[in-house]
């Protein structure tokens, strides 16, 4: 049973009872609360994709551990084709659900773990890779939904983790036992753990000697005792609750905005068989940077491109319904939207094609770092432009529209139908305006900016990954400027005598 159906996934969710809090309420059944249900339904749709023959190449891979067919969300990339299909999966899932593939972070986390645990075993003689592979085999055999948790709450950014007044702002060790470890602390902005079977936890960043208690990585079953999920709550959550019986009123009726939670670990026990990093601070940064390398290609260069595709489609419909689709400046703006998104997708494809085995001998392939960072940085800025153009072409109606339901009101409905009729009936115009509102006024702008790391981190990576001296050398050569004529690096100014 290496692939399960969406129905089997939904059956399994009926038995998942994580401790979940949404907007003042404890959720007893994930499928009854409209907010948590949207997240679960998005996961179900991703399971569905793996069942569809036309998507098999993208969604299904062959396990290097068992040789069985598995969901690509649980695959370790072993070659360039795997990397390419991985980014195509991110594109396809976003185009399908218009929200997170909630198994995406878990997938990139497990690739980082496959690479880094192999390296640790090689360097240190540990058994982390064997443990990790046992866990992965189990996850693959059950086709588990696996999410990932990376970002710590961090506290006062001027201070290192061990200097914080409250150590819990970084997930940390509280007890080492013969049979496992006990951990506590918080992980924030976590996507989709509530509807996943397991979560892979990585350190939030690079760590130094003396910070061993924070150098932890493990897999945790999401219903374990001591783990609480405090979900995000915003206007879109309230709206979804309000229209629980009439989801057609919503911008993304079935799959919603994007559901995240703050994970609170209150002395949670993790058996050794699930621990993949324990105190090896030197490898914490590598785990995170390899995760980021994979995630920037997928999240930046493919996932958000899938979002852009549906935004562009909605924007074109809005233009048609208003009767402005043939206007040159409208067409130009739509071309700009395509340019911005496809540039990022090109970077993702390049990142996959230039991917390589890391470390050598591990058999694990990771994308090219520079192109992955370019994909993410480009879309972080481009996405704002894309939703700006969607709002521009969609018009003020995107934010001034009444409820769709109001069209059926016996008193105001007939008036509204006359008011908003253009080149298409009012129903169609309002429906597409609501769809664009979901994107232009929703959570995805900031989400895209910060997801896979805020742009400043990609800018920093550019400075590390770019050979600027080589570029200067090429320019000098073309100008005919001899090396010795190049202006020397200025000496630091001496103190005036």
């Amino acid at each position, binding site marked *: 049973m290496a692939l399960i159906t969406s129905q089997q996934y939904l059956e399994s969710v009926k*038995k998942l009872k994580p401790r979940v809090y949404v907007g003042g309420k404890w959720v007893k059944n994930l499928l009854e609360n409209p907010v948590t249900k949207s997240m679960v339904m998005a996961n179900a749709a991703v399971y569905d994709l793996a069942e569809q023959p036309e998507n098999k190449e993208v969604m299904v891979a062959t396990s290097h551990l068992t040789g069985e067919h598995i969901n690509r969300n649980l695959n370790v990339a072993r070659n360039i084709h795997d990397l390419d299909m991985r980014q195509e999966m991110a594109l396809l899932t976003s185009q399908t659900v218009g929200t997170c593939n909630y198994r995406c972070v878990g997938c990139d986390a497990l690739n980082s773990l496959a690479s880094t645990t192999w390296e640790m075993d090689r360097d240190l003689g540990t058994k982390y890779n064997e443990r990790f592979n046992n866990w992965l085999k*189990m996850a693959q055999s059950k086709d588990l939904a696996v999410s990932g948790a990376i970002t710590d709450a961090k506290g006062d950014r001027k201070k290192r983790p061990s200097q914080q007044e409250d150590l819990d702002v970084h997930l940390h060790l509280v007890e080492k036992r013969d049979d496992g470890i006990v951990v506590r602390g918080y992980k924030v902005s976590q996507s989709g753990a509530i509807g996943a079977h397991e979560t892979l936890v990585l350190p939030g960043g690079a760590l130094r000697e003396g910070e061993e208690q924070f150098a932890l990585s493990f897999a945790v079953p999401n219903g374990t*005792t001591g783990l609480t999920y405090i979900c995000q709550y915003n206007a879109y959550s309230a709206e979804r609750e309000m229209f629980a019986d009439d989801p057609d009123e919503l911008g993304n009726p079935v799959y919603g905005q994007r559901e995240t939670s703050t994970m609170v670990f209150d*002395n949670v026990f993790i*058996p050794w068989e699930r621990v993949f990093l324990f105190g090896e601070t030197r490898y914490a940064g590598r785990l995170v940077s390899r995760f980021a390398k994979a995630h920037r290609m997928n999240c930046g260069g493919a996932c958000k491109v899938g979002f852009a595709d549906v935004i562009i489609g909605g924007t074109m419909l809005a233009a048609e319904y208003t009767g402005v689709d043939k206007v040159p400046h409208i067409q130009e703006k739509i071309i700009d939207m395509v340019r911005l998104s496809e540039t990022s997708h090109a970077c993702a494809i390049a990142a996959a094609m230039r991917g390589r085995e890391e470390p050598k001998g591990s058999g694990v392939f990771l994308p090219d770092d520079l192109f992955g960072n370019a994909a993410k940085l480009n879309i972080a800025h481009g996405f704002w432009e894309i939703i700006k153009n969607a709002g521009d072409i969609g018009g003020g109606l995107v934010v001034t529209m009444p409820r769709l339901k109001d069209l059926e009101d016996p008193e105001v409905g007939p008036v509204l139908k006359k008011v908003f009729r253009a080149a298409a009936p009012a129903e169609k115009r309002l429906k597409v305006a609501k769809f664009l509102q979901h994107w232009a006024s929703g959570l995805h702008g900031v989400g895209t900016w910060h997801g896979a790391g805020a742009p400043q981190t990609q800018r920093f990576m550019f400075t590390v990954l770019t050979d600027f001296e080589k570029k200067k050398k090429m320019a000098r050569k073309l100008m005919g400027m001899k090396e010795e004529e190049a202006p020397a690096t200025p000496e630091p100014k001496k103190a005036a005598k």
Partner: protein
Amino acid sequence: MEAIEVQIGKNLRSTYIGLGGTFASIIHCCLRKKALPGFHEKGLITKAEVKDGNLLRLVLSGKRKQDKLMEMMEIALPNIGAYPDTGGSAAFFIEVKSEK
């Protein structure tokens, strides 16, 4: 992997399989945290003890029928990462009773 057999009364049996350490996780939840995985209300576990290192004896509050107890364990085990298995020889056992 660990096979864990749930025993309720003389006849009800079911086997679950999870990664090594799953039984230790259940013990941590039931003894230290005093909660059954997947059930968050306080006071559900009235008694929990470990015998011989491989048997967990649980007494749950209230008067519950055996099939209800089994339903509860069918929720508790997957929430700690153990999934139904076809059977075979288990190395760990959980004996569940209802408060009388």
